[in-house]
């Protein structure tokens, strides 16, 4: 692969890649995301390869194993380009028909396209399917067109133009300014203004600074980071390098999961290819800016998603948080200024640079700009990853995209933020997706996981479940968190088992107050949030006669 040393060389390369691709050439894009692979998509991919070989179509048809399409519920997913015909729940035995009928014959196979479960309406194209139709897929949209193991695929959709623009046409301050103007807020759960964080690090004393991708995705029920990072790792890398340039950092870290080999392999490959092209490493694009990245694996514990714990882990210690009286953007890894941002946050950066902060800020609400990826799970018809502009109401997401609740049940609540988040009751479903609106209601948006709960769910058990999780996944070093969780869990378990005592609820509230105020880190401080939010909106479930409340949160068949 040739090394690119200027903006014009990049464009030349891009043109070259595009010229070799006939837009009318049929392409079979098969989702190779984890959800689809778990449904046997590996066999579907092999079946297509076999069929194409058999029919001697190797030069006439492209097969692309792409990143996550998002509609995990209906996997294995296959999209046939250029018509964008979308087939759902594909099995290996459907493959010969697809190749002959659709790829060659340009005909739609009725049985394989999406059927609306309520209306019976069919939709042959991805853009017509309700799940996709109601989204705004700025970030994840490219997943269907890219094989994550091919940097050329990314270049073909315009990749690295933002990096070229940043390094060769803008100063670091200008880049920083754009990010600030766009009001990019952290997508990992903090919602902290990225521009401000970058600026603090940039202005902090010291030559050596670090930028970090938090690809830990510890929030339970969140899988959108994996969808982006496994499916389009170059987009995240591009954002990271731009950020490094703005901050003045030459060394970056990617902190990712140890339990997802596909993710690590795709990242490694992406880094290697980017380096070969000179988009990473010394003198990027001939700009004089150098930047290198290391990949670190996590040990799997929830607390290691906390920024100071993550940094300690990179240093080679057990991931224990430290109090952030001095921010990590001033003193982070090895006490150097370190900017930690989530995968999705970094993926937004090239968009902002390419299209401008004004364009970016035109989407969303007054204080939450851009789009947000959400992962739908729980008691919902359409499990998967979706992307919507901020301001979309929860109702629109759950029903318009999620397809509503299965088995005709009623919705009880939507839980955001996992073990340190909160639940939004049905009555507040018209709340717009917005950092501050949700925070006001006690259910901070977190990383964007939306756990949908139906009428049979016990909210007491939901609170108990999350505390049980935290009791094993917090580091345990400070008293208010460790002991507070221990005692709250005991009481909730007793309540669930019908052994509530007078004053238990007040005691829970008291413990929640202490844990929230005195804990060392954000995990401890928000550990009681699910409890607090369920007490706020579902207090009657706690108070009600325990006999009526025997069903735990999980289903009894």
């Amino acid at each position: 692969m040739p090394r690119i040393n200027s903006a014009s060389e990049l464009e030349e390369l891009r043109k070259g890649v595009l010229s070799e691709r006939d837009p009318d050439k049929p392409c079979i894009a098969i989702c190779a995301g984890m959800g689809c692979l778990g449904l046997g998509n590996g066999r579907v991919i092999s079946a297509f390869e076999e069929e194409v070989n058999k029919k001697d179509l190797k030069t006439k048809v492209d097969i692309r194993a792409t990143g996550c399409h998002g509609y995990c519920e209906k996997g294995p997913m296959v999209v046939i380009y250029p018509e964008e015909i979308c087939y759902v729940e594909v099995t290996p035995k459907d493959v010969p028909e697809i190749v002959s009928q659709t790829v060659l014959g340009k005909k739609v196979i009725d049985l394989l396209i999406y059927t609306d479960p309520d209306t019976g309406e069919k939709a042959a194209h991805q853009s017509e399917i309700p799940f996709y139709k109601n989204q705004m897929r700025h970030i994840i949209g490219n997943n269907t067109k890219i094989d994550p193991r091919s940097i050329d695929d990314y270049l073909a959709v315009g990749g690295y133009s933002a990096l070229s623009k940043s390094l060769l046409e803008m100063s670091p301050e200008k880049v920083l300014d754009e990010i600030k103007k766009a009001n990019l807020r952290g997508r990992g759960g903090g919602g902290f203004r990225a521009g401000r964080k970058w600026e603090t690090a940039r202005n902090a004393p010291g030559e050596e600074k670090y930028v970090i991708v938090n690809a830990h995705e510890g929030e339970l029920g969140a899988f959108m980071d994996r969808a982006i990072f496994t499916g389009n790792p170059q987009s995240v890398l591009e954002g990271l390098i731009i950020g490094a340039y703005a901050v003045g950092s030459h060394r970056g870290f990617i902190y990712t999961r140890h339990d997802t080999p596909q993710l690590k392999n795709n990242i490694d490959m992406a880094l290697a290819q980017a380096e070969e092209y000179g988009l990473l490493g010394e003198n990027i694009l001939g700009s004089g800016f150098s930047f290198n990245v290391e990949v670190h694996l996590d040990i799997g514990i929830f607390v290691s998603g906390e920024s100071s714990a993550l940094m300690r882990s990179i240093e080679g210690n057990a991931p224990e948080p430290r109090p952030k009286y001095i921010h990590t953007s001033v003193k982070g890894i090895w006490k150097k200024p370190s900017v930690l941002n989530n995968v999705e946050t970094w993926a937004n950066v090239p968009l902002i640079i390419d299209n401008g902060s004004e364009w970016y800020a035109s989407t969303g609400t007054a204080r939450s700009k851009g789009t947000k990826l959400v992962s739908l799970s729980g008691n919902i018809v359409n499990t998967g990853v979706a992307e919507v502009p901020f301001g979309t109401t929860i109702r629109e997401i759950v029903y318009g995209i999620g397809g509503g609740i299965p088995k005709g049940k009623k919705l009880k609540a939507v839980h955001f933020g996992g073990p340190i988040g909160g639940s939004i009751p049905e009555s507040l479903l018209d709340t717009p997706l917005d950092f501050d609106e949700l925070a006001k209601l006690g259910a901070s948006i977190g990383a964007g996981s939306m756990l949908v709960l139906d009428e049979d769910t016990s909210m007491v058990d939901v609170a108990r479940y999350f505390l049980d999780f935290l009791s094993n996944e917090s580091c345990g070093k400070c008293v208010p968190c460790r002991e507070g969780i221990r005692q709250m869990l005991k009481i909730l378990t007793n309540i669930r088992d019908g052994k509530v005592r007078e004053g238990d609820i007040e005691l829970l509230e008291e413990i929640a107050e202490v844990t929230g105020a005195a804990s060392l880190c954000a995990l401890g401080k928000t550990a009681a949030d699910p409890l607090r939010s369920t007490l706020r909106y579902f207090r009657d479930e706690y108070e009600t006669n325990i006999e009526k409340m025997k069903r735990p949160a999980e289903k009894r068949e």
Partner: protein
Amino acid sequence: MAAGHTFEPRILGFLCDWCCYAGADLAGVSRFQYPPNIRVIRLMCSGRVDPAHIFRAFSTGQDAVFIGGCHLDDCHYVTHGNYDALSMVYICKKLLEHIGLNPERLRIEWVSAGEGIRFANTMNEFVPRIEKLGPLGRGEGIDEHELTFKLEAVTKLIPYIKLVQSERLRVPDRTEEAYNKFFTSEEFNRLFNELIGDKLALSQIMALLRERPHSTSEISAILGLSPSEVSRHLNVSARNQTVETGTVDNDKIDRIINKHQGKAGSLVQVLLEIQHENHWLPQEVLDRVSKKLDVPLSRVMQIVTFHKTFSLIPKGRNEVHVCTGPSCYVRGSTRLLDTVQNLMGIRPGETDPDSKFSLETGSCLGCCNLGPEIIVGGKHHGRVTPDKVKDVLKNYE
């Protein structure tokens, strides 16, 4: 009971000088008859008796131990040592029970200096009772060898037990009622089991392994523990660095260490890679990593015990993982887990005795569309209902 020859119990008595010894003396002087099986040791207060004395007595051939002190609240010392004796006896009885010996072999009585007849009556009751129980161990169906290592296991733990007793098993009021209430309470049982019971099982396992290697099934049979419990204890032992269960090629380890430039900062990555390749981390490996990277072993131990990602004991051939993330939870993962546990006979974190399956739970691999799911050796089995579990697992050897 041995047939054909009479068993003469050997009983050791600890009598306090002020009351019980005097009482025994009076019994003698007054010619009140009682069997001669008791050998007496005189001490100044029943509170002086230490669990170590009791178990030394049992270890050296005594079939029963008797402690005699002043009546409660009549102790001749301000410290009310007889209450200490009482709580000590409650605990020792529980210890005896835990190792399968009849707790009646240990008895405490309050006898005053003037109660000669009471002493004789007590002995007339106690000795035949012990006769009936038979020789220590054999009377409970425990052979000599087993008895030895069990008593050894308890003896080793005595310093620990004493500290636990003084810190955690104190009774707030010095009254007979309060003592009886506490030592028969649910709370005492729970504290005893959590603090001492588990350690006792560990100590016994250590004692067994000190003699010769034993397999998990053997330990399970000898100690009467379920394979699940044995697996759990071995896991704890490994974390205590008290059980050596295998080795790993040194070159392999060095290769991994060098790959990460042998820096202290790469400790986590090195351990992760070894765990990934080898599926578990023998103590030897941890020692070597500690030395080569020049990091304290305590830091290594903290990391490898920090999360279930690392295993300090060998895993089964098939690692079974039941997702217990919130989406799987609301779709029924608890019932799924129950079914899996019942089928395998082990709980999360444990390995079955044939080393076929290791079970673990954990959260969210992000395949929520597959929930509830079981992952075996990396392969996803999605949308599994309890009735399908057997089919999923039967294909694994």
